[in-house]
């Protein structure tokens, strides 16, 4: 085994993302992992291709360097489609300028990679960033690409083709679950593995599940499917008249959803709580957690709820969901979009305290397979494996 030699003094680990601070899950994840690796003695460098539209507040000074490649955003050009596209001179010039610029920025990456010590790793967290990394000299480093969403979700976007094309050139591509990895393998990628996200925190004080409260947490956007949650609640609430549904989060659909809630006659049993800064506190106040998303990757919200010993009912909308929840054991799943079934699952949990307690406690225990220690160990094992 080469593990000891390579990690003595730590590895040089680069994170390359679209931007180092854009608002979103990937940024949160990158900085969480960066700190964890730092604690293990690795050297970290976070690289963004360009600056962000909506930056995320990353708190005080970061304990590792960050670099943004472009000072001015690279021009946007679509692919040349058909004869008309090929003859479009303006677009052609812009495309040429963009390609030249990409090579220039990739040279910066090459310099960083070539300066790294042997055993260095480049983690490319998004496929867009890979378009630069692939142009750089990576002979001195191991390139690990990542796709932080489910296969199905990628499939509906342009990322599907790009993942197949660009990440095929990485040494390794990580998906969130084995099921997602298998689907990519069946698309012809043979450099694929998987790595779950780490649990963000383990609350010291779990929920006692005494309040008659069902919790939902997530942005009020189409993807989170709160409209379907309200449909389900309209079926489940009359059977459990003393329970309330607390909906945490805000977002563009807030108004429409509140209107739907009123229209369904649910105003007395639904509480709109807005965005919260105290997730553990909110979780302590609930007895059941519900997630009704149209699509997910490896949802942190479920992991947090389980860590707080709150049993979950969720749409089985992604491999990550059925990976986190063991259906019938530490939570309950419903067929995606089947609000009737989701209502039944909620009803099952609301009407059976014993089941709630049993599933909640087991959830808190089971979710510890994703603790930060465990996930960091798996990463370091992977680094070593890829050197064999």
């Amino acid at each position, binding site marked *: 085994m080469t593990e000891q030699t390579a990690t003595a003094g730590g590895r040089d680990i680069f994170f390359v993302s679209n931007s180092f601070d854009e608002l979103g899950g990937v940024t949160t994840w990158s900085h969480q992992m960066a700190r964890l690796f730092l604690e293990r003695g690795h050297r970290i460098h976070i690289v963004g291709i360009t600056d962000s539209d909506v930056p995320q507040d990353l708190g005080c000074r970061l304990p590792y360097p960050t670099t943004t490649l472009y000072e001015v955003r690279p021009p946007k050009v679509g692919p040349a489609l058909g004869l008309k596209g090929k003859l479009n001179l303006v677009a052609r010039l812009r495309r040429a300028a963009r390609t030249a610029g990409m090579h220039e920025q990739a040279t910066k990456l090459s310099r960083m990679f070539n300066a790294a010590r042997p055993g260095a790793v480049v983690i490319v967290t998004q496929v867009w960033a890979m378009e630069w990394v692939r142009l750089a000299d990576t002979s001195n480093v191991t390139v690990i690409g990542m796709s932080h969403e489910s296969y199905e979700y990628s499939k509906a976007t342009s990322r599907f083709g790009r993942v197949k094309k660009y990440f095929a050139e990485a040494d390794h591509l990580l998906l969130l679950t084995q099921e997602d990895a298998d689907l990519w393998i069946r698309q012809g990628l043979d450099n694929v593995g998987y790595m779950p996200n780490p649990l963000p925190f383990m609350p010291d004080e779990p929920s006692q599940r005494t309040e008659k409260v069902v919790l939902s947490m997530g942005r009020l956007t*189409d993807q989170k499917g709160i409209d379907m949650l309200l449909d389900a609640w309209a079926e489940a609430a009359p059977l459990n008249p003393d329970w309330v549904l607390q909906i945490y989060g805000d977002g563009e659909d807030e108004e429409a959803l509140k209107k739907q809630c009123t229209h369904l006659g649910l105003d007395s049993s639904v509480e709109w709580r807005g965005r919260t800064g105290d997730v553990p506190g909110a979780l302590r106040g609930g007895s059941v957690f519900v997630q009704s998303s*149209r699509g997910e990757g490896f949802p942190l919200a479920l992991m947090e709820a389980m860590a707080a010993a709150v049993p979950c009912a969720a749409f089985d909308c992604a491999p990550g969901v059925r990976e986190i929840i063991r259906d019938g054991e530490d939570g309950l799943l419903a067929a995606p*979009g*089947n609000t009737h079934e989701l209502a039944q699952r909620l009803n099952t949990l609301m009407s059976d305290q014993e089941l709630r307690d049993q599933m909640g406690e087991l959830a808190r225990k089971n979710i510890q397979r994703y603790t930060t220690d465990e996930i960091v160990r798996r990463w370091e094992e992977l680094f070593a494996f890829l050197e064999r």
Partner: protein
Amino acid sequence: MPDVSVVVIVYNDAGRLPTAVQSVLGQTYQSVEVLIVDDCSKDRSFQVAKELEAAHPGRVRAFQLPENSGGCGAPRNYGISEALGAYVMFLDSDDVLEKNACRNMIAAAERTDADLVSGMCVRVYVDSRHAKTVEWYPWLYSRSRTIESITELPDLLVFDTLSTNKCYRRSFVLEHNLQFPVGIHYEDLLFSAQAYVAAGRIALIPNHVYFWNISEKASTKSISNRRHEIANFEHRVEIHRRVDELLQANGYEDLKFHKDVKFLKHDLVLHLRDLPLVDHEYRREFRDLADAYLAAVAPDAYDEVQPFQAICAYLLRRNDWANLLPAAQALASPGKLTSSLVERDGRVYWCAEHLDDPEGARILDVTGLGYHTRPLTSFSLGNRLTSYLDNGVGKVRLSGSVVNPLGRVTADAKLAGTLELRARRTSLQSFRFPLTSLAHDGDALKWTAEADIAGTLRPLGVIDAVWDVWVNLEVDGETLRTRVAVGSIDVDSAHALQVRPRLSRLVADRIKPSASKKGNLSYVLAAESRLSARTQNLIQHALQSKAADLTKTSLRKVRKAKKDLHSGRTKIRVYHEVFSKLPVKKGLVVFESHLGKQYSDSPKAIYEEMRRQGVQFKAVWSYAGNQPTGFPDDVTLVKRWSYPYLRALAQAEFWIDNQGFPLKLTKRDETTYIQTWHGSALKRMGFHEPRLKLRSRAGQDDFQRTLDRFDHFLIRSEHDAETLAKGFRLRPEVLTRTGYPRNDKLVAARKREAETGSRERGALAAELGIDEAKTVLLYAPTFRANAQGTVKRFEPPFDVEDFAWRFGDRYTLLIRSHYLNQVVLPPSVQGRVLDVTGLHDITPLLALADGLITDYSSVMFDYSLLDRPMIFFAYDYEEYANETRGTYFDLREKAPGPVVTTESELFAAIDELKATDTEYAEARRRFVAGFGEYDQGDAAQQIVAKFFTSGSGK
């Protein structure tokens, strides 16, 4: 010490060995060693191995067996004994490993702690134009999985019998002393079986790991060079016997059964297909070997395989070659019928023999294949050459015999026919010669033909080298096309005939009869003179040149452009950008029922009412499929999705349909869309269905736009307003409370019956030949789709023969399955059970039936208007109601008739149909009031009055 040892075996393959070895050295996983074991080659293989060893010290080792072993077993065993790695893999010198193979296998082995990891093998056809690849049993490798015992996945042992796409823990191999057998072919079968059985845990990964290069030179084998195949079969059977012993010793009876099934499905079939082409001696030896092995095959295994696989195996055991050879031919060519068949006691059998043996009767029963009901044109009849004569120059005289299944070509049928020679690759030309005779002869049709091939046939040359021989029979105006099987006629030794290709005789000067791969008669162009032989070579060379590639590329582009013109995308664009700019034509009405598949339902009722009232309009009906039948003569027919169809829709004043015109077509404001819909809902619909709820907002908006095209949506009750209208989020003003035009006739029938006190049967009863004295029952189930929306195959959920036996003297049962399904009824139920699936319109059937059996079909809502008895055969209600999308109400509570779940309950309910009927009269009345209040018999009149009489607005 390396982690993985890859044993590369080689025999007389010096040329390819370096590529194989390089595929290991170039692995992304570095800790790998190569052991080359040369089976004492006669060529430079061992030298090359030594050179590789010298070039890669410490990574490659070369060994040579002292003498040739003639197989793969001995060198691999030697490799195992010399291996040092924690894991062992095998590679043949003509194949290669995928470059991540070792990394993926070792990752899986370490993750799962399995003794054996197996990945997907890919067959590469190296001689095909684009190196075609085929995955080897991909269903076994669709996802990563770990099994604790081979009994969890018998198919793995049964199908994936390769040793090479696997990675074995070396300590596991040594501990169980796993060895390849030596001195016998198919050593992989035994080795892999031993490994599967011994393994404590097996991991499967979906990755491609091994590329199996296959070169198939297209030379057809003559009988003489098939001799070695009998030895192969002997080895195959012997290996199977040893695997069976292994399984038995481990108590794996269930695995043995799976293996038996596979033997019938696969191993035997490989050889059965060739039987019509091999000589007598071969057949005898083959039969003896097969019979000995088949004796140990479980009788139940025959039930698990395709009919012809079972029939062939059975007839082989009975040594009945007269019936076996045609069956083997049918096996080789699906859709071909090579026996005249017999009918006994209402069942159809492959042959008249062996029916006294219960096993024989069971296996030879082919009733389910529908040979007695399906049109003769739907399968190809077996045609066997009985003589072949030529004059040595250019004329031939052929005769043959065509089967006449169950005498379906009757003695008085008008017969004629032609012999046709048709180029296989490009069907630019065909040459026909009239048959000189064609007549009944016992249970077959005999024919003869004379053809002056030299004088008539003018191939182009080069591109049309193979000419297939067809015999086309004209039977009462219908054409039955048949290929001519060579059978026992020796055409190989017949003369080559003269021929004059249009590209001059430089390219070919002779044409020779020959048997195709499947044993059918063809003629092949040949170059006999030296000059044409040379030209042939030149042309073959030119065809592989760069210039030829360029030509082919341009041809492909032209073909693509043609395809694009007829693609959906282009059509939709033309509809919007061209046709929709044309003026709307007053009085142009486009009708469509069930996506063009029928002339039926409310669109038909409205159309007929318009005709009855003499409305001035231009009727266009849409049809799906190739040949529209059953539509009225005085309408313009347009094929769904054709340009005329799109143009008619773009210019129509009215759209009338019952399901939905193509979703991507925008309706113009000047066009009025009357959506009649096709039934009240039990199942949740539209936005009440999970799959639509799940769509993104944009996806939901798209769907809503297609629904918003409806200007009028017909409903038959407030139930529809609560369910369908809400599920489709229709605007209130769109709802049109007229009832369904299609049901006007049912309401009228009910009224007539009440007034006259008697039930008229009408023309349909006579057409179907229904006995006046019998009660007519209609069985009309809904179709069942699985979660992905694919329609499941339909089998009547009760035994129709039992029904006929028990009720045939009292009832006539009409079966109407969903139009996407097909039913096959045995001859035994003739006259007592009728298949009426083919009729377009169900309404006359409802009016005819004295009672209805259904499950969840919306016909229940329509039929209840007749106030006649109904039985609900809801044998899978829970599954239907819950599994997919849920229902609006519980059918079991509201059903206006008995709800039964088993065949015996169904038969009991049928038995007491009349007696219990009055019980349900009140429930029926409530049902009609709840679901059909607006069906008052004047729906079509209301529609016509509202939209189509002068002065009526939209």
